[in-house]
């Protein structure tokens, strides 16, 4: 193996490495673009409880007591899988998925409902507000 061949081999590998690296960086930049698009599409909403807020990061968000629930409320008044929030055509819908205590929107018990901004959701003994996401600074 001559030295020129060795250098060329190294160059080939390096070129591939750099290319892979650039594409990885692109994937990272895409991440923020993707987030932006998601927020734009979903109206940038969140579920806010006293003292904390839950982001809505994917199209199906489970609210419940179970450890695998996306929004976990460790409270016995909440069922393991209590409600499911889904996005459809840019609008969030909340569905009761067999909870014991039911889902109340603005005081009304519902099986399924389309959420609007500033709707108050009662799940078990917890009260949440469906609202525009606020930055930490504004809270």
């Amino acid at each position, binding site marked *: 193996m001559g030295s020129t061949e060795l250098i060329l*081999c190294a160059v080939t590998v390096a070129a591939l490495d750099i290319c892979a690296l650039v594409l990885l960086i692109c994937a990272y930049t895409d991440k923020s673009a*993707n987030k932006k698009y998601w927020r734009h599409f979903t109206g940038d909403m969140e579920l806010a409880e006293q003292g904390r807020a839950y982001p809505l990061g994917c199209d199906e968000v489970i609210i419940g007591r179970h450890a*695998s629930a996306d929004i976990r409320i460790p409270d016995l008044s909440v069922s*393991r899988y209590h409600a499911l929030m889904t996005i459809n055509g840019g609008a969030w819908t909340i569905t009761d998925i067999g909870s014991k205590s039911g889902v109340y929107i603005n005081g009304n018990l519902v099986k399924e409902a389309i959420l609007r901004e500033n709707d108050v959701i009662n799940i078990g003994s917890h009260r949440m507000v469906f609202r525009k996401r606020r930055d930490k600074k504004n809270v």
Partner: protein
Amino acid sequence: MYNPLSYVSSCLFVLIAHAAMLANVFINGNYNSIADPAIIAGAVLLLDVAYFTALLFFKQTSYTIDFLLVLVLNMSVIFQSCFGQVKFDSDAIKHYITAVTALIACRVGFIACRNYKSLQNKRKFIYIAIGICIVLILTLTGSRSMWIQLGPISLQPSEFIKPLFILACATSVAEQQKKHKLLLFNVVYENIALFGLMAVICLLQWWCADLGSLPTFMAIYIAGFLLRICYPKAKLSKKTYISAAAALLVIAVIAFKFAPAYVQERLHADIWSDTNGSGYQQSQALIAIADGGWTGKGPGNGFLCNVAAHENDIVFATVCEEWGLLYALMMIFVILIMLAVPLINPPRSYYHATMSAGVCAAFTVQMALNIFGSCNMIPFTGVTIPFISAGGSSMMVSGFMIGMLAAAQSPVLDNTGGQPAAAPKPPANRPNKRPVRRKAV
């Protein structure tokens, strides 16, 4: 909407990577006339540019996977045209055409899978399509084999089941909440249907005496299964997981014990005691890797091209010999990056995420079977490395599956044509108010 800077830099660096490879071919390669590498260079760069241009017609939030795909595919074109001698011969042309097919398949997969909501509603058709594939295998293939001969082209319908099976395994959270009571258990009917499908596929593979792609289906199913049992009605203990794993282990042991003779033979083969018989390919492959070393012998200088299946079953060794182990590892690394993109940039829907997991499972298991099999770490099976091995069906299907990954990266969210979310309105009397069923606790 897409960052033009990252588009241009991606194009540029993919071209640079290919150019470096082609320079390597020019200087280290074994060719008769300068025209041979020049034709390859032309073909590769043309395909690059054509695909870059084609991408502009697709509105995507992320193009990373597409760039990685074209990077890998053209690497593979260069590899395949260099085996034995640098020449754009008929095999290389065939591979080039399949590469183009793979790119088209990727676009098709992308368009087909972008809209997960509509795809979810078409689950029935996916099952039907798999059924058709199975019927095709049972009726059209020659005596118990996996191949359909259509004039000059031979197709492998079992390959086409793979993406369909991934789609069948993909699920949404809502779907998993639709439970029914069957005897004492809460079950999702669809999970039972899927289990049945898996069983049918297993039986089919058995019947065809081709267990090579069975692990791939198993991996897809396991990924799908694990992601389905996450939402049980009752609390899911670790005991359930352990017993499931134990059951799988028992099944595997039984399967090994009662496996047909030709499988048994492969499980207990000592390749070095029979280097001219059944261990020929593997022993030659290992010798080739050892001979190639870290940096390889140069494109076109290998001897492994004289061994049968050098372009698909033992392609990893062939690449190692000519380009060196380091470069072969990099090639695998690029494919892994492609699979790891959903880790960096998570899909936004559970359906797309489970689909990506299925693709990832299928690809890794297939690569593992091929590479570790040809290097005598596990039994040798005739599966292909996606994109690197020659083979039309495999290339097309792999392209389609990568299209599925890309679709998960740039999904159609706005699937009803509606406006972005709820405009701020004061809470009014709700029209969709339901009657009170139960009192709150």
